[in-house]
């Protein structure tokens, strides 16, 4: 199965060096959840992903990307 990747850490840095806690407070989750998302140990729900993208004033695909495994079927 493929993996969801993100560049939240970079985006935080470019947004006034936002801390994980500040992002967590804005997104309505715990700091630990933001840390887990950045380390790719947790894939956020669609709603949370949209909320995070909205905080950075970015599109969803600018924040998250999908990396399919070599065995995954290609899009039709």
């Amino acid at each position: 199965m493929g993996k969801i990747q993100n560049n939240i850490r970079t985006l935080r840095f470019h947004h006034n060096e936002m801390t994980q806690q500040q992002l967590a407070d804005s997104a309505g989750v715990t700091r630990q959840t933001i840390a887990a998302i950045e380390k790719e140990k947790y894939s956020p729900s669609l709603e949370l992903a949209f909320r995070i993208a909205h905080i950075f004033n970015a599109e969803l695909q600018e924040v998250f990307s999908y990396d399919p495994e070599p065995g995954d079927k290609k899009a039709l």
Partner: protein
Amino acid sequence: MQIQEKRMIAEIISSVLTFGGYSVYTWHKYQEAGPDVAHDLIFWAKAFLMLIPVGVVAGIVIMIILSIMNKIVTGEEPLMVQDERDKLIELKAHRISSWIFIIGVFFSMGTIALGMPAMAMFIGIAIFGFITSVADSAIRLILYLRGF
């Protein structure tokens, strides 16, 4: 180590200490009660019902001590809310630990079907309750550490 991981370790330690301590206490009472107590439903029902509030109180006390110690050492505030990740981990752990408890109840009923005394059923349910509690916390700890 994150606060949730510390909480899971504290829960495991709490379960082991509570169940171990209460088992020793019940064993002493069993020895005092005499040989007929193996078939005494009232004795075992009381022992089993007492385990529940003892476990709850011990768990609460240990969690309060953990929160205070964590605040003193790290300055971290205790987490008062569960977000989506916490709830998902809890659901996944409950699903697996529920199966463990169901298997335990099955085996405990089996002891009665095999003609063993009532004591065997109560002890079986208590042991599998303990295993379920430890497994639930251990699974959540693994999911917090490893991710999913």
